């Protein structure tokens, strides 16, 4: 365990550089403000996903760690990123496109062939990471667009989030109960870090690992959506004058 936590940190220069460049660009464009803390949080989440032991485990060891990475990149980092932008920034995007981006990202990258390809090849993995961040941002834009008036109205937003939650749950259900292996890369991990024994000690088997991956997508992801749904109700009931009602 200790080995994993200490030596599991991968030096991921590309990710660190991108984060640094992102931060620099942010300060050049928008200057320093309290919103920058959201950017810091977003980058911390990205680094947690890409440089921490989560990444080490996702890299050939555990499908479930790889799923955690996806959740962080698709559902946690993008909302923080959007929250860091000043209200003057706006990107036009149709809600259906946003929905398809968020849900499609999950389905697309879990087609067995693509899942294996991303686990095997560095460039494809990089494309995957960037696409998750971009598609995640497109999804959350409907809920958290920097400019208030570009956000979905609360009740349509609830429907948007609820259907997305259902669509991801279906994929989670498939992964959890699938009798076949989705990502065969994880079947025979190359034990680079010497932690195979540790994982065995956790009782991690191939089947169980995939089940955890599916359940992560099914249950905790739905809670993230549920929290977002609550924020929409809070917004709806908190609305006062000068806004159209539904």
């Amino acid at each position, binding site marked *: 365990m200790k080995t994993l936590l200490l030596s599991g940190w991968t030096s991921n220069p590309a990710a660190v550089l991108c984060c640094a460049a992102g931060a620099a660009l942010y300060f050049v464009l928008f200057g320093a403000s309290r919103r920058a803390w959201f950017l810091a949080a977003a980058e911390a989440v990205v680094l947690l996903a890409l440089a921490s032991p989560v990444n080490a485990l996702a890299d050939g060891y555990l499908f479930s760690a790889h799923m955690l990475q996806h959740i962080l990149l698709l559902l946690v980092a993008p909302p923080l990123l959007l929250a860091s932008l000043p209200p003057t920034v706006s990107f036009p995007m149709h809600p259906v496109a946003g929905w398809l981006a968020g849900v499609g990202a999950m389905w697309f990258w879990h087609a067995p*062939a693509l899942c294996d390809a991303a686990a095997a090849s560095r460039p494809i993995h990089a494309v995957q990471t960037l696409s998750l961040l971009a598609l995640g941002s497109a999804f959350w834009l409907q809920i958290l667009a920097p400019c208030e008036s570009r956000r979905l109205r609360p*009740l349509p937003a*609830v429907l948007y989030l*609820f259907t997305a*939650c*259902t669509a991801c*749950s*279906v994929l989670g*259900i*498939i992964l*959890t*109960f*699938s*009798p*076949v292996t989705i990502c065969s890369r994880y079947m025979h991990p190359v034990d680079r870090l010497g932690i195979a024994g540790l994982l065995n000690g956790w009782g991690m088997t191939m*089947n*169980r690992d995939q*089940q*955890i991956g599916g*359940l992560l997508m*099914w*249950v905790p992801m*739905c*809670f993230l959506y*549920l929290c977002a*749904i*609550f924020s929409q*109700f*809070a917004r*709806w*009931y908190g*609305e*006062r*004058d*000068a*806004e*159209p*009602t*539904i």
Partner: protein
Amino acid sequence: MNEATLAPDSLAAERDDAFRRLAWLSTVDHKKIGILYLLTALVFFVAGGVEAIFIRLQLAVPNNTLLSPETYNALFTLHGTTMIFLVAMPALFGLANYFVPLQIGARDMAFPRLNAFSFWVVPMGGILLHLSLLSGSAPSMGWFAYAPLSEKAYSSQLGVDYWALSLFVLGIGSVGTSINIIATVLCLRAPGMTLRRVPLFTWMNFVNSFIVILALPVLNAGLAMLLIDRRLDAHFFMPSGGGSAILWQHIFWAFGHPEVYIVAVPAFGIISEIIPVFSRKPIFGYEFVAASTVAIAILSLGVWAHHMFTVGMGRTADLFFVVSSMLIAIPTGVKVLNWTATLLHGRIQFKTPMLFAIAALVQFLCGGLTGISHAMAALDWQTKNSYFLVAHFHFVIVGLIVFMIMGGLAYWLPKITGRMLSERIGKWTFWLMTIGFNMTFIIQHFLGFAGMPRRVYTYPDLPGWAWMNMVSTIGVFFMTAASLLLVWNIVASLLWGKPAGDNPWDAWTLEWATTSPPPHENFHELPPIRGRRPLWDYANPDRPDPVVGPVHAVEPAPPDKTKSAVLLFIFSETGFFLVLILAFLFYNSTPQPGPGPKELDLLKTGLFSLCLFASSFTLWRSEVGEHNRDNGSMIRWLAATLVLGGVFIIGQGLEYWGLFKSGVAVNTNLFATTFFTLTGFHGLHVCIGLIALAIVLGFAVGGEFKHRPSVALKAVGYYWHFVDVVWVLVLTVVYILPRLR
């Protein structure tokens, strides 16, 4: 669709005529339909109650021989099925039917004829279920119909088929009602009655209807699969033919767990109406009660597996479902706390409805706490198959739901009949019911701890079991007396009751703003609506409630009701197809022995699929024609759509014929079963779409759309495009994915 094209005055004339002749049989008035629902529920309550009495009589003493094991099993199955599908759901739908339109100041439901249809399938479903008795073989596999016991090899007679058909039509009716409720709440609210101001009973029925339209199709897909197994010798759920009995459990509980909330959430709604009125306070934390309902609705859809801890899903899956199931306790707890906080410092009036609400609150708390104990997999393993579980779910279903139906009747019957019920008889009813209920079911917790298993027709004379069972049985007779008193009270009030007046309880929601019983059109005029208690504001102009939501907002026009209904129907159908597609994926993830997907002719099907996809395009052109008021273009493109759809169906027919000729039938192997089921149901939907399009075409040719715009084409169009999208998925899953392997 036709309805939208009929002028309101012709509808009204037709209605008046119907009133004179067959007023109750042909009614489309939501109030009469509501009453019919309640009466149907009462009839089946008698049936389910008598079944319960016999069950408890058989269990009153050890080694009893009053009932044979077969009879006991049949009664126990019928009791469960009847009480859920023919009592709780119709009673709650009846109250919703009567009071949702009144509470939002509407004249009727959005689709009065659909409403009548949804009601009439309830008696039909009930008759189908009981026809099994005439066939000499009542279903006796339990209301959960676990495979393979429910399969032909183990239940060879017709009982299970009647049971499945009955639930199938009841499911269709429930989805119809729910679409209707949602469309009513979305489209027919009175001016000023924004969704933020609707009474909680209406809000909860609104949210609940979404659970119904998502959960019932899952059951219906499972029932279709079960019937295919039984009648066409397939093996969906038969392990002997490679099927999975566990899949039935997944499907059943994916419906069954939301079902608990389908009957509980409207009961929550009734509590939320009664407690504030008889505490003389507005509800505490309306927003929390309303939003927590949504949380319950969403969580309820994803936690079914906690019914299956003892099946052996593995520790990992158990762990996640332990956590997610426990989380439901949070929104439910929020509700209980809010109701309690409403009682706090209230000037509580202990009238009959309030007594039922308070008892339901306490009993539901107990049922909820034992529920949490079942959410813990380790404890669940010990108690699941015992009377502890029987006690738990009866605390929820009787302690909360039946109590709240009774409370709701005590509260609203004066509005329905125009006459007060007797408070004295009402209190007797309440106390007999409460004593009887608790006598019957509290002791069953201890019976469970003492090890008595559930689902047994008799038991040995073990220490303590006999007297506890006797106490439990005696309690049933108190509840029987209470039920008889309730009926007597209603009859007596109809005969000699005091006139109720418009607002006997001094309540604040709109149903009390009209006469009792309300006139046919419900309201002559409505008070201004600026908050959640319009009648309070009206009676107390000097200290009104704060305005809810923006004051000077311009309200957007409500969505079109026909389009909304079709979209909701599509939402519901998605659930149905999802189950069939998942079943296909599940059974074909490893190649089955015998014929497989690779034998299908992708090229031929691909060409016919192009026809179907092209038909979406032609339909869109037809819609454009309609939009431009170009009747000729609309008709031409619509006809082209019909031809293309027809060609696709012919293509499907050819493919089926080819498969039959090469000896592939629905029972050949699991690939054939899932293939024919999935594509067959899709083909059925294409045919329904074709019929709907043909009807629209007929109207168009008849010049129906020349003079005024109609949503008919657009609405049917949504459905047709949906059917095409489903085919994209089916084509991918059935024809393309297996080739990539």
